[in-house]
Protein backbone atom coordinates (compact mmCIF):
# COMPACT_ATOMS: atom_id res chain seq x y z
CA UNK A 1 0.00 0.00 0.00
CA UNK A 2 2.76 2.40 0.96
CA UNK A 3 4.38 1.56 -2.30
CA UNK A 4 1.36 2.77 -4.25
CA UNK A 5 1.23 6.03 -2.33
CA UNK A 6 4.95 6.48 -2.77
CA UNK A 7 4.59 5.93 -6.50
CA UNK A 8 1.76 8.43 -6.73
CA UNK A 9 3.84 10.99 -4.86
CA UNK A 10 6.75 10.24 -7.18
CA UNK A 11 4.50 10.75 -10.19
CA UNK A 12 2.94 14.00 -9.02
CA UNK A 13 6.25 15.88 -9.00
CA UNK A 14 7.18 14.93 -12.53
CA UNK A 15 3.54 15.47 -13.44
CA UNK A 16 3.85 19.05 -12.21
CA UNK A 17 6.68 19.63 -14.65
CA UNK A 18 4.61 18.11 -17.45
CA UNK A 19 1.71 20.36 -16.56
CA UNK A 20 3.83 23.50 -16.89
CA UNK A 21 5.30 22.40 -20.19
CA UNK A 22 1.88 21.43 -21.46
CA UNK A 23 0.30 24.69 -20.34
CA UNK A 24 2.75 26.63 -22.45
CA UNK A 25 2.17 24.35 -25.40
CA UNK A 26 -1.57 24.39 -25.08
CA UNK A 27 -1.92 28.18 -24.96
CA UNK A 28 0.26 28.54 -28.02
CA UNK A 29 -1.62 25.80 -29.79
CA UNK A 30 -4.99 27.20 -28.82
CA UNK A 31 -4.25 30.65 -30.15
CA UNK A 32 -2.10 30.06 -33.14
CA UNK A 33 -2.65 26.40 -33.97
CA UNK A 34 1.10 25.90 -33.79
CA UNK A 35 2.69 22.72 -32.48
CA UNK A 36 5.59 24.60 -30.90
CA UNK A 37 8.08 21.76 -30.92
CA UNK A 38 10.95 24.00 -29.84
CA UNK A 39 9.26 24.66 -26.51
CA UNK A 40 11.24 21.98 -24.70
CA UNK A 41 14.59 23.21 -25.93
CA UNK A 42 13.73 26.83 -25.15
CA UNK A 43 12.67 25.77 -21.66
CA UNK A 44 16.00 24.06 -21.23
CA UNK A 45 17.71 27.23 -22.35
CA UNK A 46 16.03 28.96 -19.44
CA UNK A 47 17.23 26.24 -17.11
CA UNK A 48 20.76 26.51 -18.42
CA UNK A 49 20.69 30.25 -18.04
CA UNK A 50 19.62 29.95 -14.42
CA UNK A 51 22.39 27.45 -13.82
CA UNK A 52 24.92 29.72 -15.46
CA UNK A 53 23.87 32.71 -13.38
CA UNK A 54 23.91 30.75 -10.14
CA UNK A 55 26.97 28.62 -10.66
CA UNK A 56 29.38 30.90 -12.42
CA UNK A 57 28.07 34.42 -11.80
CA UNK A 58 27.13 33.93 -8.18
CA UNK A 59 23.63 35.36 -8.61
CA UNK A 60 21.29 34.19 -5.84
CA UNK A 61 18.89 31.46 -6.98
CA UNK A 62 15.70 33.48 -7.00
CA UNK A 63 17.35 36.40 -8.70
CA UNK A 64 18.62 34.04 -11.36
CA UNK A 65 15.20 32.52 -11.84
CA UNK A 66 13.68 35.97 -12.20
CA UNK A 67 16.25 36.95 -14.82
CA UNK A 68 15.71 33.67 -16.67
CA UNK A 69 11.94 34.05 -16.66
CA UNK A 70 12.15 37.58 -18.00
CA UNK A 71 14.66 36.49 -20.63
CA UNK A 72 12.32 33.64 -21.50
CA UNK A 73 9.45 36.05 -21.97
CA UNK A 74 11.55 38.18 -24.28
CA UNK A 75 12.77 35.15 -26.16
CA UNK A 76 9.20 33.97 -26.68
CA UNK A 77 8.27 37.36 -28.08
CA UNK A 78 11.20 37.28 -30.46
CA UNK A 79 10.42 33.75 -31.61
CA UNK A 80 6.82 34.60 -32.38
CA UNK A 81 7.76 37.74 -34.22
CA UNK A 82 10.68 36.47 -36.26
CA UNK A 83 9.89 32.82 -36.83
CA UNK A 84 6.19 32.09 -36.57
CA UNK A 85 4.58 35.33 -37.69
CA UNK A 86 5.93 35.05 -41.24
CA UNK A 87 4.27 31.65 -41.66
CA UNK A 88 1.05 32.61 -39.92
CA UNK A 89 -1.02 32.39 -43.07
CA UNK A 90 0.72 29.36 -44.53
CA UNK A 91 -0.21 25.74 -44.05
CA UNK A 92 0.22 24.61 -40.47
CA UNK A 93 2.75 22.01 -41.47
CA UNK A 94 5.06 24.87 -42.42
CA UNK A 95 4.83 26.26 -38.93
CA UNK A 96 5.70 22.81 -37.71
CA UNK A 97 8.82 22.73 -39.85
CA UNK A 98 9.77 26.15 -38.54
CA UNK A 99 9.34 24.68 -35.09
CA UNK A 100 11.70 21.83 -35.96
CA UNK A 101 14.25 24.26 -37.32
CA UNK A 102 13.98 26.33 -34.16
CA UNK A 103 14.45 23.22 -32.07
CA UNK A 104 17.71 22.48 -33.83
CA UNK A 105 18.86 26.05 -33.48
CA UNK A 106 18.11 26.26 -29.80
CA UNK A 107 19.64 22.85 -29.12
CA UNK A 108 22.70 24.03 -31.00
CA UNK A 109 22.83 27.26 -29.04
CA UNK A 110 22.49 25.42 -25.75
CA UNK A 111 25.31 23.13 -26.73
CA UNK A 112 27.48 25.97 -27.89
CA UNK A 113 27.03 28.07 -24.78
CA UNK A 114 26.54 25.51 -22.06
CA UNK A 115 28.31 22.39 -23.27
CA UNK A 116 27.34 18.75 -23.47
CA UNK A 117 27.75 17.84 -19.82
CA UNK A 118 24.63 17.62 -17.75
CA UNK A 119 24.14 20.47 -15.34
CA UNK A 120 22.18 20.53 -12.12
CA UNK A 121 21.01 23.83 -10.69
CA UNK A 122 22.32 23.88 -7.14
CA UNK A 123 19.76 24.48 -4.41
CA UNK A 124 20.01 24.29 -0.66
CA UNK A 125 16.84 22.22 -0.28
CA UNK A 126 18.12 18.82 0.74
CA UNK A 127 15.78 17.77 3.53
CA UNK A 128 13.56 14.75 3.14
CA UNK A 129 10.16 14.49 4.79
CA UNK A 130 8.81 11.15 5.85
CA UNK A 131 5.06 10.88 6.26
CA UNK A 132 4.03 7.42 7.37
CA UNK A 133 6.66 5.69 5.30
CA UNK A 134 6.09 7.85 2.23
CA UNK A 135 9.13 10.03 1.66
CA UNK A 136 9.12 13.39 -0.09
CA UNK A 137 12.28 15.36 -0.67
CA UNK A 138 11.84 19.03 0.17
CA UNK A 139 12.68 20.08 -3.37
CA UNK A 140 9.94 17.95 -4.87
CA UNK A 141 7.47 19.54 -2.52
CA UNK A 142 8.50 22.99 -3.72
CA UNK A 143 8.17 21.92 -7.31
CA UNK A 144 4.65 20.61 -6.76
CA UNK A 145 3.65 23.73 -4.86
CA UNK A 146 5.04 26.20 -7.36
CA UNK A 147 3.48 24.30 -10.26
CA UNK A 148 0.13 24.52 -8.48
CA UNK A 149 0.55 28.23 -7.85
CA UNK A 150 1.51 28.95 -11.45
CA UNK A 151 -1.45 26.96 -12.73
CA UNK A 152 -3.80 28.92 -10.50
CA UNK A 153 -2.23 32.20 -11.59
CA UNK A 154 -2.64 31.27 -15.24
CA UNK A 155 -6.23 30.25 -14.68
CA UNK A 156 -7.00 33.59 -13.09
CA UNK A 157 -5.19 35.41 -15.86
CA UNK A 158 -7.12 33.70 -18.62
CA UNK A 159 -10.50 33.68 -16.94
CA UNK A 160 -10.52 37.02 -15.20
CA UNK A 161 -8.43 39.51 -17.12
CA UNK A 162 -9.17 41.36 -20.28
CA UNK A 163 -6.02 40.08 -21.91
CA UNK A 164 -7.13 36.56 -21.03
CA UNK A 165 -10.50 37.21 -22.61
CA UNK A 166 -8.78 38.45 -25.76
CA UNK A 167 -6.58 35.39 -25.83
CA UNK A 168 -9.59 33.10 -25.73
CA UNK A 169 -11.40 35.08 -28.38
CA UNK A 170 -8.39 34.96 -30.66
CA UNK A 171 -8.09 31.24 -30.10
CA UNK A 172 -11.63 30.65 -31.21
CA UNK A 173 -12.07 33.00 -34.13
CA UNK A 174 -9.41 35.32 -35.34
CA UNK A 175 -11.51 37.51 -37.62
CA UNK A 176 -14.24 37.93 -35.07
CA UNK A 177 -11.64 38.83 -32.47
CA UNK A 178 -10.38 41.62 -34.73
CA UNK A 179 -13.93 42.89 -35.11
CA UNK A 180 -14.26 43.03 -31.35
CA UNK A 181 -11.22 45.28 -31.19
CA UNK A 182 -8.68 42.71 -30.07
CA UNK A 183 -5.18 43.65 -31.13
CA UNK A 184 -4.21 40.49 -32.92
CA UNK A 185 -0.65 41.61 -33.44
CA UNK A 186 0.28 41.98 -29.81
CA UNK A 187 -1.73 39.15 -28.28
CA UNK A 188 0.36 36.40 -29.91
CA UNK A 189 3.48 38.10 -28.63
CA UNK A 190 2.11 38.11 -25.11
CA UNK A 191 1.00 34.52 -25.43
CA UNK A 192 4.39 33.39 -26.62
CA UNK A 193 6.07 35.40 -23.92
CA UNK A 194 3.96 33.88 -21.18
CA UNK A 195 4.20 30.42 -22.61
CA UNK A 196 7.96 30.60 -22.79
CA UNK A 197 8.19 32.07 -19.32
CA UNK A 198 6.16 29.12 -18.05
CA UNK A 199 8.45 26.81 -19.97
CA UNK A 200 11.46 28.42 -18.34
CA UNK A 201 10.05 27.77 -14.88
CA UNK A 202 9.58 24.16 -15.92
CA UNK A 203 13.17 24.18 -17.16
CA UNK A 204 14.34 25.47 -13.79
CA UNK A 205 12.37 22.74 -12.04
CA UNK A 206 13.85 20.06 -14.26
CA UNK A 207 17.28 21.57 -13.80
CA UNK A 208 17.12 21.59 -10.02
CA UNK A 209 15.13 18.43 -9.40
CA UNK A 210 16.81 16.45 -12.15
CA UNK A 211 19.28 17.76 -14.68
CA UNK A 212 19.58 19.57 -17.95
CA UNK A 213 21.50 17.91 -20.73
CA UNK A 214 21.33 17.77 -24.52
CA UNK A 215 18.19 16.01 -25.70
CA UNK A 216 16.25 16.31 -22.45
CA UNK A 217 14.22 19.22 -23.79
CA UNK A 218 13.14 17.27 -26.84
CA UNK A 219 12.07 14.35 -24.69
CA UNK A 220 10.10 16.71 -22.51
CA UNK A 221 8.27 18.36 -25.38
CA UNK A 222 7.12 14.99 -26.65
CA UNK A 223 5.73 14.26 -23.22
CA UNK A 224 4.13 17.69 -23.27
CA UNK A 225 2.35 16.85 -26.49
CA UNK A 226 1.28 13.52 -25.09
CA UNK A 227 -0.27 15.45 -22.21
CA UNK A 228 -2.08 17.70 -24.67
CA UNK A 229 -3.45 14.75 -26.58
CA UNK A 230 -4.46 13.07 -23.37
CA UNK A 231 -6.18 16.16 -22.02
CA UNK A 232 -7.45 17.64 -25.27
CA UNK A 233 -5.58 20.04 -27.54
CA UNK A 234 -5.96 23.64 -26.50
CA UNK A 235 -7.78 22.72 -23.32
CA UNK A 236 -6.54 24.36 -20.19
CA UNK A 237 -7.95 21.92 -17.61
CA UNK A 238 -6.93 19.15 -20.00
CA UNK A 239 -3.29 20.14 -19.71
CA UNK A 240 -3.49 20.03 -15.93
CA UNK A 241 -5.29 16.73 -15.63
CA UNK A 242 -3.36 15.20 -18.50
CA UNK A 243 -0.03 16.18 -16.98
CA UNK A 244 -0.77 14.70 -13.59
CA UNK A 245 -2.30 11.57 -15.13
CA UNK A 246 0.74 11.04 -17.34
CA UNK A 247 3.17 11.56 -14.47
CA UNK A 248 1.38 9.08 -12.23
CA UNK A 249 0.85 6.58 -15.04
CA UNK A 250 4.56 6.55 -15.78
CA UNK A 251 5.40 6.12 -12.16
CA UNK A 252 2.97 3.27 -11.62
CA UNK A 253 3.95 1.63 -14.90
CA UNK A 254 7.63 1.71 -14.02
CA UNK A 255 6.98 0.49 -10.50
CA UNK A 256 4.43 -2.20 -11.13
CA UNK A 257 4.71 -3.31 -14.73
CA UNK A 258 8.03 -2.69 -16.41
CA UNK A 259 10.61 0.04 -16.16
CA UNK A 260 11.87 -0.75 -19.64
CA UNK A 261 8.48 -0.19 -21.19
CA UNK A 262 7.18 2.60 -18.97
CA UNK A 263 7.07 5.09 -21.83
CA UNK A 264 5.42 2.52 -24.04
CA UNK A 265 2.76 2.02 -21.40
CA UNK A 266 2.26 5.77 -21.06
CA UNK A 267 1.79 6.09 -24.81
CA UNK A 268 -0.53 3.12 -24.93
CA UNK A 269 -2.69 4.76 -22.26
CA UNK A 270 -2.69 7.93 -24.31
CA UNK A 271 -3.73 6.10 -27.47
CA UNK A 272 -6.36 4.11 -25.62
CA UNK A 273 -7.88 7.30 -24.23
CA UNK A 274 -7.90 8.71 -27.71
CA UNK A 275 -9.77 5.72 -29.09
CA UNK A 276 -12.50 6.14 -26.53
CA UNK A 277 -12.50 9.92 -26.54
CA UNK A 278 -10.93 11.21 -29.76
CA UNK A 279 -11.04 14.76 -28.41
CA UNK A 280 -9.03 13.88 -25.29
CA UNK A 281 -10.14 13.74 -21.67
CA UNK A 282 -11.24 17.36 -21.39
CA UNK A 283 -11.50 18.31 -25.05
CA UNK A 284 -14.80 19.53 -26.39
CA UNK A 285 -16.51 17.87 -29.33
CA UNK A 286 -16.48 20.24 -32.21
Amino acid at each position, binding site marked *: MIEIFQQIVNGVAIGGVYVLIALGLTTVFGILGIAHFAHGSVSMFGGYLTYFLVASQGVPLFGAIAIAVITGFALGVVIEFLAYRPVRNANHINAFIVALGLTMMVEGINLQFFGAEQVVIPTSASRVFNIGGVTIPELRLYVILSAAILVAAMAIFVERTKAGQAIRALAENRD*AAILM*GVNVNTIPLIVFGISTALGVTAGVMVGSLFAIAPGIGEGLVVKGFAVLILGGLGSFPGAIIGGVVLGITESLAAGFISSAYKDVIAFVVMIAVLLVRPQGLMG*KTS
Partner: protein
Amino acid sequence: MLEVRGLRVSYGPIEVVHGIDLDVKEGECVALIGANGAGKSSTLKAICGLIKARDGSIRFDGQDITNQAGHAIVRAGITMCPEGRQVFPQMNVVKNLRMGAYARTDDAQASDLEEMMDMFPILRQRAGQAAGTLSGGEQEMLAIGRALMARPKLCIFDEPSLGLAPKIVAEVGETIERVKGMGKTILLVEQNSLMALRLADRAYLFEAGEIVLEGTGEELQSHPEVAKAYLGH
Protein backbone atom coordinates in the same frame (compact mmCIF):
# COMPACT_ATOMS: atom_id res chain seq x y z
CA MET B 1 -19.04 60.14 -41.90
CA LEU B 2 -17.56 57.31 -43.98
CA GLU B 3 -15.83 58.26 -47.20
CA VAL B 4 -14.45 55.60 -49.51
CA ARG B 5 -12.52 56.77 -52.56
CA GLY B 6 -11.12 54.66 -55.36
CA LEU B 7 -10.99 51.52 -53.26
CA ARG B 8 -9.33 48.50 -54.84
CA VAL B 9 -9.13 45.10 -53.20
CA SER B 10 -7.40 42.00 -54.42
CA TYR B 11 -6.74 38.47 -53.26
CA GLY B 12 -3.27 37.62 -54.49
CA PRO B 13 -3.13 38.57 -58.13
CA ILE B 14 -6.92 38.65 -58.57
CA GLU B 15 -8.54 42.03 -58.13
CA VAL B 16 -12.15 41.81 -56.99
CA VAL B 17 -13.01 45.42 -56.21
CA HIS B 18 -12.03 47.82 -58.94
CA GLY B 19 -11.90 51.29 -57.50
CA ILE B 20 -15.19 52.25 -55.96
CA ASP B 21 -16.43 55.43 -54.29
CA LEU B 22 -18.91 55.20 -51.47
CA ASP B 23 -20.28 57.56 -48.84
CA VAL B 24 -22.21 57.07 -45.67
CA LYS B 25 -23.43 60.19 -43.91
CA GLU B 26 -24.08 60.49 -40.22
CA GLY B 27 -27.40 58.92 -39.19
CA GLU B 28 -27.95 57.43 -42.61
CA CYS B 29 -28.74 53.84 -43.53
CA VAL B 30 -26.96 52.82 -46.68
CA ALA B 31 -27.46 49.50 -48.45
CA LEU B 32 -25.16 47.68 -50.82
CA ILE B 33 -26.87 45.19 -53.06
CA GLY B 34 -25.66 43.04 -55.88
CA ALA B 35 -25.06 39.51 -57.03
CA ASN B 36 -22.90 36.88 -55.44
CA GLY B 37 -19.23 37.54 -55.56
CA ALA B 38 -19.72 41.11 -56.67
CA GLY B 39 -17.29 42.25 -54.04
CA LYS B 40 -19.57 43.58 -51.35
CA SER B 41 -18.10 41.60 -48.49
CA SER B 42 -14.61 42.38 -49.70
CA THR B 43 -15.38 46.07 -49.55
CA LEU B 44 -16.67 45.75 -46.01
CA LYS B 45 -13.67 43.75 -44.95
CA ALA B 46 -11.36 46.39 -46.30
CA ILE B 47 -13.26 49.06 -44.36
CA CYS B 48 -12.94 47.06 -41.14
CA GLY B 49 -9.27 46.30 -41.63
CA LEU B 50 -9.70 42.54 -42.04
CA ILE B 51 -7.99 42.72 -45.42
CA LYS B 52 -5.72 45.30 -46.97
CA ALA B 53 -6.84 47.76 -49.57
CA ARG B 54 -4.57 47.71 -52.57
CA ASP B 55 -5.36 51.27 -53.48
CA GLY B 56 -7.70 54.10 -52.56
CA SER B 57 -8.56 55.73 -49.28
CA ILE B 58 -11.05 55.22 -46.50
CA ARG B 59 -11.88 58.07 -44.14
CA PHE B 60 -14.08 57.82 -41.09
CA ASP B 61 -15.14 60.71 -38.93
CA GLY B 62 -12.54 62.86 -40.61
CA GLN B 63 -9.79 60.41 -39.79
CA ASP B 64 -7.85 58.36 -42.33
CA ILE B 65 -8.32 54.70 -41.50
CA THR B 66 -7.02 53.18 -44.71
CA ASN B 67 -5.16 49.97 -43.91
CA GLN B 68 -5.20 50.62 -40.19
CA ALA B 69 -5.16 47.64 -37.91
CA GLY B 70 -8.59 46.16 -37.30
CA HIS B 71 -8.61 46.86 -33.60
CA ALA B 72 -7.85 50.51 -34.16
CA ILE B 73 -10.78 50.80 -36.53
CA VAL B 74 -13.07 49.25 -33.93
CA ARG B 75 -11.90 51.83 -31.43
CA ALA B 76 -12.61 54.53 -33.95
CA GLY B 77 -16.25 53.44 -33.76
CA ILE B 78 -16.94 50.93 -36.54
CA THR B 79 -18.20 47.44 -35.83
CA MET B 80 -19.24 44.80 -38.22
CA CYS B 81 -21.61 41.93 -37.89
CA PRO B 82 -19.81 39.67 -40.31
CA GLU B 83 -21.04 37.39 -43.04
CA GLY B 84 -21.37 33.85 -41.73
CA ARG B 85 -21.90 35.10 -38.18
CA GLN B 86 -18.42 34.29 -36.84
CA VAL B 87 -19.43 33.69 -33.26
CA PHE B 88 -16.89 32.37 -30.75
CA PRO B 89 -17.95 28.75 -30.90
CA GLN B 90 -16.79 27.54 -27.50
CA MET B 91 -17.81 30.57 -25.51
CA ASN B 92 -21.35 30.64 -24.27
CA VAL B 93 -23.87 33.19 -25.40
CA VAL B 94 -23.27 35.60 -22.55
CA LYS B 95 -19.50 35.51 -23.00
CA ASN B 96 -19.93 36.19 -26.70
CA LEU B 97 -22.01 39.21 -25.93
CA ARG B 98 -19.46 40.41 -23.39
CA MET B 99 -16.74 40.09 -26.02
CA GLY B 100 -18.74 42.56 -28.05
CA ALA B 101 -17.99 45.19 -25.44
CA TYR B 102 -14.29 44.34 -25.36
CA ALA B 103 -13.12 47.69 -26.69
CA ARG B 104 -15.38 49.65 -24.37
CA THR B 105 -14.18 51.19 -21.17
CA ASP B 106 -17.43 52.43 -19.60
CA ASP B 107 -19.41 50.33 -17.17
CA ALA B 108 -22.87 50.22 -18.68
CA GLN B 109 -22.11 46.81 -20.12
CA ALA B 110 -24.33 44.86 -17.75
CA SER B 111 -27.41 46.86 -18.63
CA ASP B 112 -26.61 46.63 -22.35
CA LEU B 113 -26.36 42.89 -21.94
CA GLU B 114 -29.85 42.81 -20.48
CA GLU B 115 -31.07 44.98 -23.31
CA MET B 116 -29.74 42.56 -25.91
CA MET B 117 -31.35 39.63 -24.16
CA ASP B 118 -34.63 41.52 -24.18
CA MET B 119 -34.26 42.28 -27.82
CA PHE B 120 -33.59 38.59 -28.59
CA PRO B 121 -35.37 36.47 -25.99
CA ILE B 122 -34.01 33.25 -27.51
CA LEU B 123 -30.56 34.37 -26.43
CA ARG B 124 -31.71 34.51 -22.85
CA GLN B 125 -32.99 30.94 -23.14
CA ARG B 126 -29.65 29.81 -24.52
CA ALA B 127 -27.54 32.03 -22.29
CA GLY B 128 -25.25 29.23 -21.06
CA GLN B 129 -25.02 27.24 -24.30
CA ALA B 130 -21.84 27.21 -26.35
CA ALA B 131 -22.39 29.45 -29.34
CA GLY B 132 -21.05 26.86 -31.75
CA THR B 133 -24.01 24.59 -31.06
CA LEU B 134 -26.67 27.22 -31.73
CA SER B 135 -28.68 26.97 -34.91
CA GLY B 136 -27.81 29.29 -37.74
CA GLY B 137 -30.55 31.73 -36.92
CA GLU B 138 -29.71 31.80 -33.27
CA GLN B 139 -26.12 32.55 -34.15
CA GLU B 140 -27.12 35.42 -36.41
CA MET B 141 -29.06 37.04 -33.60
CA LEU B 142 -26.13 36.55 -31.31
CA ALA B 143 -23.82 38.18 -33.84
CA ILE B 144 -26.08 41.19 -34.18
CA GLY B 145 -26.39 41.51 -30.45
CA ARG B 146 -22.65 41.24 -30.07
CA ALA B 147 -22.05 43.97 -32.62
CA LEU B 148 -24.47 46.30 -30.87
CA MET B 149 -22.73 45.65 -27.56
CA ALA B 150 -19.85 47.75 -28.86
CA ARG B 151 -22.12 50.82 -29.09
CA PRO B 152 -20.59 51.70 -32.43
CA LYS B 153 -20.98 54.94 -34.32
CA LEU B 154 -21.17 53.03 -37.59
CA CYS B 155 -22.68 49.59 -37.61
CA ILE B 156 -22.01 47.36 -40.58
CA PHE B 157 -24.20 44.34 -41.29
CA ASP B 158 -23.09 41.77 -43.84
CA GLU B 159 -26.10 39.72 -44.90
CA PRO B 160 -27.80 39.56 -41.53
CA SER B 161 -30.89 37.78 -42.87
CA LEU B 162 -29.00 34.97 -44.55
CA GLY B 163 -30.56 31.66 -43.60
CA LEU B 164 -33.13 33.05 -41.25
CA ALA B 165 -36.75 32.01 -40.97
CA PRO B 166 -39.16 34.48 -42.58
CA LYS B 167 -40.55 35.52 -39.23
CA ILE B 168 -37.03 36.21 -37.98
CA VAL B 169 -36.06 37.98 -41.17
CA ALA B 170 -38.89 40.34 -40.47
CA GLU B 171 -37.60 40.69 -36.92
CA VAL B 172 -34.09 41.37 -38.11
CA GLY B 173 -35.55 44.04 -40.37
CA GLU B 174 -37.28 45.51 -37.36
CA THR B 175 -34.11 45.27 -35.33
CA ILE B 176 -32.16 47.19 -37.90
CA GLU B 177 -34.96 49.67 -38.03
CA ARG B 178 -34.63 50.00 -34.28
CA VAL B 179 -30.88 50.40 -34.50
CA LYS B 180 -31.51 53.08 -37.04
CA GLY B 181 -33.96 54.61 -34.62
CA MET B 182 -31.22 54.71 -32.00
CA GLY B 183 -29.57 57.21 -34.28
CA LYS B 184 -26.84 54.85 -35.41
CA THR B 185 -25.34 55.04 -38.82
CA ILE B 186 -25.74 51.82 -40.76
CA LEU B 187 -24.08 50.20 -43.72
CA LEU B 188 -26.01 47.15 -44.78
CA VAL B 189 -25.29 44.41 -47.28
CA GLU B 190 -28.24 42.20 -48.09
CA GLN B 191 -29.20 39.53 -50.56
CA ASN B 192 -32.73 40.19 -49.50
CA SER B 193 -32.70 43.28 -51.69
CA LEU B 194 -36.30 44.09 -51.12
CA MET B 195 -35.82 44.40 -47.41
CA ALA B 196 -32.53 46.23 -47.86
CA LEU B 197 -34.00 48.81 -50.19
CA ARG B 198 -36.98 49.34 -47.93
CA LEU B 199 -34.73 50.00 -44.98
CA ALA B 200 -32.16 52.09 -46.78
CA ASP B 201 -32.07 55.81 -47.19
CA ARG B 202 -29.64 55.33 -50.01
CA ALA B 203 -28.29 52.33 -51.85
CA TYR B 204 -25.52 51.25 -54.19
CA LEU B 205 -25.72 48.45 -56.73
CA PHE B 206 -22.56 46.36 -57.13
CA GLU B 207 -21.74 44.40 -60.19
CA ALA B 208 -18.47 42.56 -60.71
CA GLY B 209 -16.47 44.74 -58.37
CA GLU B 210 -17.85 48.07 -59.52
CA ILE B 211 -20.67 50.33 -58.48
CA VAL B 212 -23.04 50.59 -61.37
CA LEU B 213 -25.97 52.37 -59.81
CA GLU B 214 -26.58 54.69 -56.91
CA GLY B 215 -29.72 56.29 -55.57
CA THR B 216 -32.28 56.42 -52.82
CA GLY B 217 -33.95 53.21 -51.72
CA GLU B 218 -37.11 54.01 -53.63
CA GLU B 219 -35.26 54.99 -56.78
CA LEU B 220 -33.49 51.67 -56.93
CA GLN B 221 -36.62 49.72 -56.06
CA SER B 222 -38.36 51.17 -59.04
CA HIS B 223 -35.37 50.87 -61.35
CA PRO B 224 -36.39 48.30 -63.99
CA GLU B 225 -33.14 46.36 -64.10
CA VAL B 226 -32.84 46.13 -60.35
CA ALA B 227 -36.42 45.01 -60.10
CA LYS B 228 -35.84 42.31 -62.67
CA ALA B 229 -32.56 40.91 -61.46
CA TYR B 230 -32.68 41.42 -57.71
CA LEU B 231 -36.20 41.84 -56.54
CA GLY B 232 -37.45 38.86 -58.46
CA HIS B 233 -40.67 37.38 -59.65
